[in-house]
């Protein structure tokens, strides 16, 4: 850092203490505790625990159910990320095109950002309900008997639709602001070179949007992995049974319902490693961005 700085020995430490204290107590302690307990097998009645080494991890690797949940998480994350990015990009491009009403459209398309995922999930519960859901009835006219909470893939479909609905606004905001920061001159130059609007978009505009898109990709993956907990919990009505769940949801079930502290902690650690990798990728991309701008 090349800026003029104050030199005061104790003030910065005083300023940092609150943050460091909270992080130490509520972040590092739990995180360390998770790593530690992933090597132990907890007595279900709370009488101590025994060191089992990597057994919790090998159990995970061999568990067919864990693999199934992992596959579903992958599919779910992909679907949510893809559809919410695609829809948002389309809407942002159109909102950037129109001259009249752009502000109104922006408001209408972004306000859902503020709705809590479980509230969106409750709406999903009502709309997709097996006997009275409005969307269920709509599907019925096409001959699709939609059974939320009973059929695995029907439930998965509802989860993806609700999660996408909830995520489109964030992506829309970022894409629109990305599009609006592209200078007019660039567009006009492109207009001379290329008559086709679609061609112009993919050759000129989209590459300029790529940094935003990469950033959003990471944001969306994180969202699908972690923030959709409320959507899933409400749509399976807090009773997962045979319904599809994600890895984070499984950490929750195994830890709080199954009282399996060791297994749940091992799953937490696996997720930590996953997020670590994602973040490294993100930092790399951000660094590259700073060089360009």
């Amino acid at each position, binding site marked *: *850092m090349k*800026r*003029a*700085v*104050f030199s005061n020995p104790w003030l*910065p430490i005083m*300023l*940092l203490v*609150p*943050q460091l204290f*909270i*992080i130490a*107590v*509520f*972040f590092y302690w*739990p995180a360390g505790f998770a790593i530690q307990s992933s090597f132990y097998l907890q007595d279900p009645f709370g009488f101590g625990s025994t060191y089992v080494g990597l057994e919790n991890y090998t159990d995970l690797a061999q568990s067919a159910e864990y693999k199934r949940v992992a596959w579903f998480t992958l599919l779910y994350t992909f679907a949510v990320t893809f559809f919410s990015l695609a*829809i948002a990009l*389309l*809407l942002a491009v159109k909102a950037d*095109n*129109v*001259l009249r*009403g752009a502000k109104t*459209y*922006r*408001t*209408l398309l972004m306000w*859902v950002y*503020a*709705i*809590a995922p*479980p*509230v969106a*999930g*409750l*709406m999903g519960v*009502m*709309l997709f*309900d097996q006997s*009275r859901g409005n969307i269920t*009835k709509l599907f019925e006219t096409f001959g699709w008997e939609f059974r939320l909470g009973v059929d695995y893939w029907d439930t998965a479909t509802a989860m993806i639709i609700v999660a996408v609905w909830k995520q*489109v606004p*964030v992506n829309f*905001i970022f894409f629109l*602001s990305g599009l609006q920061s592209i200078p007019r001159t660039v567009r006009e130059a492109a207009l001379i070179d290329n*008559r*086709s609007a679609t061609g112009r978009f993919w050759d000129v505009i989209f590459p300029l949007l790529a940094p935003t898109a990469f950033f959003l990709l990471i944001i969306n993956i*994180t969202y699908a992995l972690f*923030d959709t*907990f409320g959507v899933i919990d*409400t749509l399976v*009505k*807090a*009773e997962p049974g045979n319904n599809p769940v994600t890895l984070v949801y499984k*950490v929750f079930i195994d830890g709080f319902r199954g009282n399996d502290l060791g297994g749940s*902690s091992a799953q*937490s650690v696996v997720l*930590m490693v996953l*997020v*670590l990798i994602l973040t490294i990728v993100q930092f790399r991309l951000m660094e590259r961005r700073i060089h360009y701008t």
Partner: protein
Amino acid sequence: MADITETSAPATRATPAAPTRRRINWGVIGDHAILIAGSLFMLVPVCMVFMTASHDPVTIHREGLQWWFGEELEANFSAALFERGGFTDTVDGMRMLTNSLILGVGFAIGKIIISMMAAYAIVYFRLKFATLAFWVIFTTLLLPLEVRILPSYEVIQSMGLTNTYTGLIVPLIASATGTFFFRQFFRSVPEELIEAARIDGAGPLKFFIDILVPLSRTMIAAIFIIMFVFGWNQYLWPTLITTEEGFFTLVRGIRQIVQVIADGNAIPEYGQAMALAIIAMLPPVLIVVFFQNWFVKGLTESDK
């Protein structure tokens, strides 16, 4: 042809000899059609929930969400707000609304104060352990609370903080998002300001309070909005940490509703439930809509 007309403004300027009679511009109409469809996709489900909140439970049980107003709007909303019981036996909507406000505002303010202080220390001071402090703080960006949920719960429980506002709010603050925002912002503040402050004899504390904080007003407002919405919408953590209904937030109350629907013994009070859902989404939605310029700015600057 549609391509030329799509970007009508520069194109018409470039060709002044174009015929003056306006043609129907299909490209623009198509754009509007897509935008209207997108807006409806966002708007209609929430409108239906609002309409449904004005009906009696039997109608809703038979027909699902409603398309138009019924007779019970006031009754449902007042029941959702003031009637104890219904979905939660010992707590009314007002209590949950208060708790949600405490969580949202407490979280936002706590986060802003703590992260501004930390960011100030990191950006403006020559510190021995600066790099270490930086990494200690920014590692927390890696792991959302959901990932380490069970151990966090165990730690809070061992400290006896379940069913307290402290246990509800403080662990959520333990991440560096705010510090990161402010660090980026402080770094963009011109260096001449410090020089000027120094010449005027202002110390670091005076500089912080009299110059930097007022300068960051817009940034603070934007981060307040983002953090308020984040805190208000918390679900998993309040679900675990508050078992006493007196501490339930509105979003936590949604879970009770869903469980009553899942039980399916009697016809649930759907109308009241929808009213409660509307109450739960109203404050954050209003804030985001009214302060959208600040909010959008804060959100999109955060990734730089």
